[in-house]
């Protein structure tokens, strides 16, 4: 036998023998999990609920199956999951993971850590928090939702893209957790009767949930945070200088409500004084007016400019309120710490130091609104 023959025979043997070691996951012989929720039940015990693709239905509709098990750790719970299922549970299709609020208030690092350690989990799955036990959300029989796991994923994804929810992937969470000057935010998901919806944002200190922020304020955080921007936002202002442009007053009013479509915004955060910890926050927005509560007369001279100034004024107040809310909860979701760290030489900023410093920060907010279209013929 010459060398080539020995080589080729050994290759064939290698193909045959080594292939046996390779572990296969044949699609229909696995239980594919699409969403997982963790509830706290008693001290040190975790209840894991998992949404799986169910046995096929005749109509070919998406169907799901929810299994709940208990365990000391999340990994232990997953092992217990296998005892209840005909096929091995696999986690490569999980795109949504939720933690019960109580669990989140105790800290969720251990579970998040397991997720990032296991390569079969994707990095881009969404994390969320719930106020009530997750089992109620996942196991509920919704009349209009066939697979609640996939539904929740879509819900979060489109809200990140179009609305006020900041990106909340596992990757983002870990990135925020390990960065010195920024804290994580996760959306809060709730079930009301037959619907699930995103209600607020949960604010974190490290891996511990410390409070929440309402959508009206969350919009401003999203404006400062992401490349993706909210498509629209609502602003409510005092009538003040605008009263004279309102025609046909049918009823007395104190405030004017507007809905704005966001056509593109730019935000900048600058550290003005490192000793007083003063930040300049400036948002420039191009907007179109989608709705206004009163019969506003745009044809009149100065009307549009007046609206712009009032909007700018009101929005900078709202922005400041949102930031003060963060300050109160000591959770720097925007990442002022990162601005500080990159502006101050040799700052040696650590997470703990920034947590002490952040409540002392002062913000000068400024919003410049540029009203591009009013939606009416002028």
């Amino acid at each position, binding site marked *: 036998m010459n060398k080539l023959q020995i080589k080729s025979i050994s290759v064939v043997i290698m*193909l045959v023998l080594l*292939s046996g070691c*390779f572990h*296969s*996951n*044949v*699609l*229909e012989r*696995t239980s*594919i999990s*699409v969403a997982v929720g963790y509830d706290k039940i008693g001290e040190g015990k975790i209840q894991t609920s998992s949404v799986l*693709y169910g*046995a*096929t239905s005749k109509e*070919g509709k*998406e169907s799901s199956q929810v299994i709940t098990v208990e365990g000391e750790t999340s990994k232990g719970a997953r092992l217990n999951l296998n005892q209840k299922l005909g096929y091995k549970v*696999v986690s*490569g*299709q999980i*795109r949504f993971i939720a933690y019960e609020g109580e669990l989140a208030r105790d800290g969720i690092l251990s579970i998040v850590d397991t997720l990032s350690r296991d390569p*079969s989990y*994707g990095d881009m799955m969404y994390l969320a928090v719930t106020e009530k036990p997750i089992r109620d959300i996942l196991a509920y029989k919704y009349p209009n939702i066939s697979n609640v796991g*996939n539904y929740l*994923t879509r819900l979060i994804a489109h809200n990140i893209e179009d609305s006020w929810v900041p990106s909340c992937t596992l990757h983002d969470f870990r990135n925020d957790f390990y960065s010195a000057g920024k804290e994580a935010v996760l959306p809060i998901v709730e079930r009301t009767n037959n619907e699930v919806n995103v209600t607020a944002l949960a604010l974190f200190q490290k891996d511990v949930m410390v409070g929440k922020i309402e959508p009206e304020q969350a919009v401003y955080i999203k404006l400062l945070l992401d490349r993706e921007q909210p498509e629209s936002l609502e602003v409510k202002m005092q009538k003040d200088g605008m009263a004279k442009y309102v025609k046909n007053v049918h009823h007395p009013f104190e405030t004017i409500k507007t809905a704005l479509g966001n056509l593109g915004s730019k935000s900048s955060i600058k550290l003005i004084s490192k000793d007083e910890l003063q930040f300049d926050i400036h948002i420039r927005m191009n907007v179109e007016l989608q709705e206004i509560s009163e019969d506003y007369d745009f044809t009149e001279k100065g009307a549009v400019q007046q609206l712009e100034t009032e909007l700018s004024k009101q929005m900078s107040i709202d922005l400041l309120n949102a930031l003060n809310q963060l300050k109160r909860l000591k959770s720097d979701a925007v990442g002022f710490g990162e601005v500080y760290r990159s502006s101050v030489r040799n700052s040696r900023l650590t997470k703990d130091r920034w947590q002490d410093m952040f409540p002392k920060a002062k913000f000068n907010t400024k919003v410049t609104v540029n009203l591009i279209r009013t939606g009416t013929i002028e």
Partner: protein
Amino acid sequence: MTTANMAFSDIASYLKLELNQLLPNCSDLVVHGINSSVAVCYVSGLVDTKVLSSSILSVLTMLDEDEVNTELIRQTITICEIEREGNLDQVALKLLQGHVYIAVLDEYEGLLCNIANFPTRAISASENETVIFGPVLGFNESLSSNIAILRSYIKDPDLVTEPHMLGTKMETRIQLTYMSEYVDQQYVDYVKSKLKQIKTDGLLGNALLVQKLQNHPYTIFPLMTLTERPDRTVQALMEGKVVIFMEGDSHVIIGPSSFIDFFLSVEDRYMSWGTGLFIRMLRFIGLMMSVFLTPVYVAALTFHYQMIPPALIVSLIETRTKVPFPPLIETLLLEITMELLREAGVRLPTKVCQTIGIVGGIVIGQAAVQAGFTSNILIMLVALAALGSFTTPNYLMGTSIRLIRYPMIFMAGLWGILGIVFVAMVIFIHLLRQTSLGRPYLFPIFPFRGKDLTVDMLLTPRAHYSYRVTPTKSGLKSNETENNQQSDTASSNSSSSNET
């Protein structure tokens, strides 16, 4: 001959005796005595009987029996190719090539007239390489008429046709053809040296000659193009390539060829660059689909459920749960069914072929899914893959592409995507090692020549005017656009037709 002649009163019976010894069991040998002193012999079927009777027999019968001699015959009969020959061994050989031998009593030398007319088929449209647009003419099995077709395109003394003989028994005639001005001499030398090395009784067709000319005997890829289209041949000649014609084969060999050449059709040049490019791209997409589609299905379903988009996973699970086999077996089963259908379609007479279509469409398509034999999605993928492999313009390459799918499916079933990459790498390394007439097989890609690649792929307007943008020197660029501009327009009908 004179002495021997004396024993016989007429030349015909003498010739019959002698030739029967040289060609013992040759039943189609005809020896025809005109009169006692003149005889004609030939092999029936090889000569043109019309010429024989009108130009030879009618003249010979007019001549006076007593005054006849070879010189007189030579002057009277109206055949151009006449030579004198006295050696009967030579005569026997020539008779087998379609000559007529005229012998005269009492003369040592007879006359050999070439009126050969080997049975051949008329020139017709090329059937295997069909085009919708452009000249439809195809070569036939006759070497001389093929060369004639070629000369009708290129009327230039630069066109070299070198005759060679192959084989000890069959004596296959081949013609090495190239444009002496454009060709890279190293290709010509390469072919000549290879031809010298060939030891065989004879070759039945050019496809066998290709195998003898390539370096790597075990490759499954065709290393040289076989075509029966004159316009493609002319284009290759103008690009400075070597073309080999063979007597008895309508296909000619074009070399050197690169891997990409097999996916290009002459027709592409006849279209505008945009449509041409689109169709070329379509073929490469077809290639990718036919090679990778089913292996990726096997890999994704066996190992990589993570890759499957959530919208697809539900319907996949649904169809797969009914199937009793693992994805690997399921796919191999269906792919082999597909190949069986194709092979059956080729072998059966055309009239029965329709039945195959029905069997394939109804039985395999519908019943297999309903019986829970395969999944719907796989049937679609296999059909797409088959469709992709049909788009390859070259039949030999199309077959090779079909073949490499199987190791890929197999390895995908064993190792998943890793297996696909593994097989793809093995094939890629294999391709890198191949040469065609000494030029790398993957030429414009490796060694990388961006300019050639763009001309090949993009069909820039320049590619229409000049054929010589593709290099002739292996690896070296030679770009003589201006030189051959003139000869192009003069000689090639095909290129000028598409500019209008």
